[in-house]
């Protein structure tokens, strides 16, 4: 089946609000059902977006961070009433272990939401979203992004030229290599600064600062964006209202307690799960639609 991400096609302002909401709720609210929804939603979406690469991220970065969190909490927190065993006269409590476990999953979910965000919020979307609020800053941001590959290729050119002079970056003692590296870097800095002024003059002569700045990509806030924003906003408001009434809160210390399950808590859990899986739901729905349309041709 064709794999395309339709969720990223929505208006950047909606996307930023969506990620902000999911990340903040994940961090603030403490309940296994919501944590599990956020963790699985972000994990599956990340796998959908990045395919095999998602696994290397999960195993190389997220899992170590999670394991560290799981170990640190019971080792240093001795709160809780159920002591399982003692290490150096310090009780290791069941509550602290469970809390560490919960924090680990919370942290994992947050990191995965951030990397999904990184994946779909391309820089032109970012500049579009912040171009009005911070015009100068977002221009500096996009210029710096352009300069990075340019400087990298210039560094390669200079070091190749120096290699043909016999000053190879990969040969000689460490001190010599560092000194060679600094020479290459230093010449690149001079070149970059000199060149940058040309860029600035070109900008000025093309009328920078005289009028409203446009962006490379324009995103209209169309009907589709309006509908999805209204739906998500309504769901988010419901979630926040029910959470504020504390109908979904798990207490870890001193002992583990849940609030009684009410209609409100069930609604919150269902709504938040839908929000977390929304990117995937939209993508699958669009994929089915696409398949249906192509099959009719």
């Amino acid at each position, binding site marked *: 089946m064709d794999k395309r991400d339709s969720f990223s096609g929505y208006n950047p302002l909606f996307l930023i609000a969506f990620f902000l909401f999911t990340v903040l709720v994940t961090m603030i609210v403490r309940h296994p059902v919501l944590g599990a929804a956020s963790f699985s939603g972000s994990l599956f979406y990340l796998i959908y977006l990045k395919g095999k690469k998602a696994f290397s991220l999960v195993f190389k970065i997220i899992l170590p961070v999670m394991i560290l969190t799981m170990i640190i909490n019971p080792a240093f927190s001795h709160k809780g009433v159920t002591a399982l065993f003692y290490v150096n006269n310090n009780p290791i409590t069941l509550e602290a272990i469970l809390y560490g476990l919960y924090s680990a999953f919370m942290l994992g979910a947050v990191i995965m939401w951030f990397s999904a965000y990184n994946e779909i919020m391309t820089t032109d979307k970012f500049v579009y979203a912040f171009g009005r609020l911070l015009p100068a800053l977002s221009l500096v941001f996009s210029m*710096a992004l352009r300069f990075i590959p340019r400087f990298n290729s210039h560094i390669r050119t200079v070091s190749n030229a120096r290699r043909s002079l016999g000053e190879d970056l990969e040969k000689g003692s460490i001190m010599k290599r560092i000194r060679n590296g600094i020479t290459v870097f230093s010449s690149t800095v001079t070149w970059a600064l000199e060149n940058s002024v040309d860029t600035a003059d070109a900008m000025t002569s093309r009328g920078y600062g005289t009028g409203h700045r446009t962006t490379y990509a324009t995103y209209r806030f169309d009907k589709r964006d309006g509908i999805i924003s209204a739906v998500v906003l309504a769901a988010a408001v419901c979630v926040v209202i029910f959470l504020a009434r504390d109908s979904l809160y798990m207490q870890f210390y001193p002992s583990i307690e849940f609030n009684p399950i009410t209609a409100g808590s069930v609604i919150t859990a269902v709504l938040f799960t839908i929000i977390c899986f929304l990117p995937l739901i939209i993508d699958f729905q669009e994929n089915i639609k696409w398949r249906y349309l192509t099959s009719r041709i």
Partner: protein
Amino acid sequence: MEEKRISKRTLVASVFIFLLVPVIIFVGVVFFDDRAYYPISMVIAFLSMAPFFMVFEGRKPRSREMVVIAVMIAITVVGRMAFFMVPQFKPTMAIVIISGFSLGPESGFIVGSLASFISNLFFGQGPWTPWQMFAFGLMGFLAGWLKKLNLLERNRIQLCIFGALCAMFLYGIMVDIASVFMMTSSNVTADTVKATFVSGFPLNAVHALATIIFMALLGIPMIKKLERIKIKFGLMEI
């Protein structure tokens, strides 16, 4: 007219800092029962950057100035990329300090914060981003500010010592506190803080050493280059 505009932005910025931060702490303590350290500290770190960004916008920077700042950001990121295989051994701090020293406190903050934001685009964005942005930005700001007060001079030894102190203590402590909040989100105790500082010590030491080495090798030449550009292209006011 211009003056009024700036003061309006500054006003917004001060409202951000002096009103919103206590309100957020209050909300955190009262409504979340003091159990949401990390998200709240993250939001505060973000808000603390707002005044710096607002001042920069309010100044209506000229295109030459903006391009020079963008170049310094890109150089910082490229420097971090060049040393991707050695953890913590990066020229980032040295270049941010040099930028703040030569371009002034405000531009120093912009270089530091945007450089860490952009390099995290390549190395991985996460809940640590606002803290790193704020910490690096503050180092750039501090360097420019101390230069203005004539406490920091164009002297290799002074710059090296300043860089090492920044990497070891200011940046190290800020980022370590962030990881305390991140790993043990609600039960911050003296023990967890101590443990994080102890485990962070070797990394901070490597960072400080790297800053000394890069500052010694790059510091004065790069400051000279920036001074030259400033004189040649009439950017003296920054």
